[in-house]
């Protein structure tokens, strides 16, 4: 059952940049603050089209964030984007107090996020921001899965009132959603039906989740439900509860640390409503390093293989056939068998 076809590759940052430039035509109140990396985060598209509403403040992410707040408190919809390493952490205090506590109409673009920023190395590979951002009251947090969804998500957060953060990446990644694929903030998309295991993923890992689901079907006849949890906050509680009640085990997958991100968010929901075995795929509490994106996602276990192996473990745990002592060996042997 193949529900989503790959239609080439394009970076999610393109979706962000194009959406802003297009929105500028219809939203005269939209302003964008740049912090020197505009050509990378592609706010340059907006700058070229609407130079009178683009303001560079230099490499000063703290000030960029609060300048955006000042604009927002003066009636603008203010966007600021830099690499997630700097637009979610360098300005963490500004995000907490001035953006979120103020409920300012500020939209933050977290560009070049995750391990797939690649050769720049660990300093620039932000893998922790979901944990921090998820804890901030009033913030809407989205992590789109492909170019088109990034474009829709950018428009959605700019059109809603209040603070929002959108996380996206640098490399070209598979495009597989369609123009008519719905995007509603806070409402997860079920990309594939199935009741044996639910794979809940966000960002880059959604495509990997689809690949894993196909392999599970092909090799084991397992029907995996694949859920694109594009909105991390507010999270779609119903979709998680349904998945846990109907599939009775869950795998989460994200290009982020295993602590505090999507996996944590899903576990919080199930622990309260419908406890089931959960396997969390992500960075295993470690920093990354330089390399090509495809090398890094292999090394750190952020591909369909890890999801596939984790699904088998999750199903064993659900069925009571899982032996803890065998876990490490099994995952390794599942890998070898691929």
């Amino acid at each position: 059952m193949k529900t989503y076809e790959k239609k080439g590759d394009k970076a999610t940052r393109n979706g962000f940049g194009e959406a802003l430039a297009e929105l500028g035509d219809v939203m005269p109140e939209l302003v964008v603050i740049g912090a020197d990396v505009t050509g990378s985060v592609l706010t340059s598209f907006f700058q070229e089209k609407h130079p009178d509403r683009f303001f560079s403040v230099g490499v000063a992410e703290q000030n960029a964030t609060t300048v955006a707040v000042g604009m927002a408190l003066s009636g603008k919809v203010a966007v600021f984007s830099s690499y997630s390493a700097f637009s979610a952490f360098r300005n963490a205090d500004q995000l907490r107090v001035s953006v979120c506590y103020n409920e300012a109409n500020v939209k933050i673009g977290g560009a070049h996020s995750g391990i797939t920023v690649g050769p720049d190395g660990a300093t620039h590979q932000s893998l922790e921001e979901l944990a921090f951002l998820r804890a901030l009251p009033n913030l809407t947090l989205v992590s789109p899965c492909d170019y088109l969804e990034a474009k829709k998500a950018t428009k959605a957060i700019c059109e809603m009132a209040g603070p929002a953060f959108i996380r996206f990446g640098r490399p070209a990644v598979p495009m597989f959603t369609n123009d008519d694929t719905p995007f509603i903030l806070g409402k997860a998309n079920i990309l594939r039906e199935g009741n044996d295991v639910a794979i809940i993923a966000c960002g880059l890992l959604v495509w990997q989740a689809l690949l894993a689901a196909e392999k599970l079907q092909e090799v084991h006849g397992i029907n995996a439900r694949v859920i694109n949890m594009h909105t991390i906050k507010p999270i779609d509680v119903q979709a998680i509860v349904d998945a846990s009640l109907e599939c009775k085990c869950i795998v989460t997958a994200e290009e982020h640390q295993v602590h505090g991100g999507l996996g944590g968010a899903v576990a919080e929901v199930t622990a309260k409503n419908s406890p089931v075995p959960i396997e969390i795929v992500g960075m295993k509490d470690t920093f990354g390093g330089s390399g090509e994106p495809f090398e890094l996602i292999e090394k750190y276990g952020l591909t369909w293989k890890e999801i596939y192996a984790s699904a088998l473990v999750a199903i064993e745990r659900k069925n009571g056939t899982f032996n803890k002592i065998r876990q490490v060996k099994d995952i390794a042997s599942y890998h070898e068998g691929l």
Partner: protein
Amino acid sequence: MDLKIEFEEKIFENKRRSPDEFKIIANTLRQDIIKSLLLAGSGHSGGPLGIADLMSVLYFGGYLNYNPHEPDWKDRDRFILSAGHMAPILYAVLARAGYFPASELATLRKFGSRLQGHPGLDVKLPGIETSSGSLGQGVSIAVGMAMSHKLVDKDSKEVYSITGDGELQEGICWEAAMTAGTYGLDNFCWIVDNNDCQIDGRVKNVMSVYPLKEKFEAFGFTVFEIDGHNIVDIIATLDKFTRFHALRKGKPVCIIAKTFMGNGVSFMHDNYKWHGNPPNKEQAIKALEELSK
């Protein structure tokens, strides 16, 4: 001696005044500060007392355009108290301007009050433009507001912000200064409450921020150094700012106001130990006695 704390419901108009009138207003504000801090049992005394003269001219001298009956009036000027811990003076000013009853000053820092320990936008106290208290953020927000007015809306609204001097140790202040200078924000007036006091001691000893005039000039500001308790000086300098703005001089203004922490109360005068403490009952009685002279 017994002390009954009451806040007389008295409102001051925003208009040109004689220096003596401003001094009377400033002392009313100081009394409000002492009373509300005594009732709160915690909070910052020294800083708010030290900027009472500046605040009385700014809010009641016809400089800041605002409408207490329409706090969100779109043509208002903006005032941002970046040094959010000085909230008691802001609350006193807003009450005396008519934004809310003076009696509400009795709720400072109390459970359920709109007068939060540091200003919060969420509690919707009329006249508050932003939450502030994490130092340096307020002035950067003020710069964003000034940019919005001058560069996007292209109107003539003015933005004023007060920072402390210890606050200037926060790097974001200088990021904001760089931006204000680069964009030539002549609608922006940055007032530094230069009392040379911060929690740990003298600013020059904790971590010097001096020389201030040269620093702000280097960042593209027109700088005025004044006695922050001399009403004539304050009036003359604010007049210069508004004139420069009217002439579109293309530079932001920085007023370095030399002040004394705890000004107006003898035992608090120029004593950094009064940065973060409220008066007790006996001290409040003495302070109010001095301030009513």
